[in-house]
């Protein structure tokens, strides 16, 4: 087996397939699907409804937690949040009521909106939406902030600069700061640190043990994932 034989084999592998003639349409459909899923994520949408049933089963069996690092504990006394969103028109929204958890966030009080995932921590203000998910008209009732982090990548107190991206520009990012705003016709605005213009997240502490703890300082401008207006989010979570 020579080097050239291996190289020739790879060359044939490289040239053996041709994409479908409608590749562009297929890619466009997947882009749309990803965007729809992202929107559904915000509104506790279809994808999450599908996931929620599975997630519940998984959580009960522990089947998706090989490391046993997803911890269901009593919540500690609520963290102090001074996070404030400021829109370009000067209007502000404060997020004083923030829950920190290593279990997925819940919307409308009791609906999980993500799957249990080892090594993840979330901080979020109350997530409420109205309308029908199945009819694709679910809308956010009031602005909320949702921060998701990978605990093992936040050790040592990193300072992360916007835009915060995952490896190769793909998700998951070590931390993602997300806001769903109700302003931005026709259906609100979605903003995040992955399309942020300028800003930082300074992580002070991130841990699931013994109780979920996320302390950080946020300062900067979150960019819109929908090409709408940006907002400033500043403050501490401690």
């Amino acid at each position, binding site marked *: *087996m020579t080097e050239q*034989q*291996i*190289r*020739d*084999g*790879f*060359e*044939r*592998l*490289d*040239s*053996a*397939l*041709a*994409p*479908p003639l*409608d*590749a*562009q349409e*297929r*890619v*466009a459909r*997947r*882009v749309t*699907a*990803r*965007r729809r*899923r992202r929107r559904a994520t915000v509104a506790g949408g279809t*994808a999450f409804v*599908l*996931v929620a049933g599975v997630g519940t089963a998984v959580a009960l069996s522990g089947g998706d937690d090989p490391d046993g690092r997803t911890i269901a504990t009593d919540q500690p006394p609520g963290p102090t949040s001074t996070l404030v969103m400021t829109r370009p028109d000067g209007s502000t929204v404060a997020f004083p009521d923030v829950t920190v958890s290593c279990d997925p966030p819940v919307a409308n009080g009791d609906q999980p909106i993500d*799957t249990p995932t080892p090594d993840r921590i979330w901080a979020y203000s109350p997530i409420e939406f109205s309308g029908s998910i199945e009819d694709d008209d679910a809308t956010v009732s009031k602005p909320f902030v949702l921060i998701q982090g990978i605990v093992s990548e936040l050790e040592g107190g990193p300072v992360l600069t916007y*835009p915060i991206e995952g*490896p*190769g*520009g*793909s998700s*998951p990012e070590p931390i993602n700061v997300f806001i769903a705003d109700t302003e931005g016709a026709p259906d609100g605005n979605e903003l995040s640190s992955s*399309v942020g213009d300028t800003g930082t997240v300074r992580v002070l502490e991130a841990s699931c043990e013994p109780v979920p703890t996320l302390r950080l300082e946020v300062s900067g401008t979150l*960019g819109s*994932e929908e*090409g709408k207006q940006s907002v400033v989010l500043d403050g501490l979570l401690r």
Partner: protein
Amino acid sequence: MDRTNDLDFADFVAVQTRPLLGLAHALTANQHDAWDLTQETLARLGERWGRTRFDEPAAYARTVMVRLNIDRLRRLRRELPLLGGPSEEAPVDVVGDTDAWLVEALATLSPRQRTALALRYVEDLDVRGIAARMGCSEGTVKSQLSRGTERLREHAREHGPLRTTTGDTA
């Protein structure tokens, strides 16, 4: 994404889909996975197109593809069912022969070994370039290349003469 960006991205897809599919085929040794990986890579770029400035979008796409492939077992299995991905028939056309021994041998390698070999033999990258794409050290790349190459040779020795066939393990 405005119309101008749509057109730009359409051009990118038109030019890059075939070479990306080739790399994906080398990364996965599987028609279905190759198309899936190509489509997902392009979709991720398409999502960001117009919002993020890509100095070298073709190189960026390959980095995204490589890292998606390394992590795909952990990451995509959870995401793709929601996108209707895995159940979709691979729509690619087989237009050339592949070496069955290589397809079979690649299936026995770890994703990282396959990735290192594909970047070496398809992208013609050196160790430093492979390390940059994979996001790991040069020492790790050398190790993956060495073990992967040895595994290919072992497989060829164990399974006799080199055979050529069409298609692969879809």
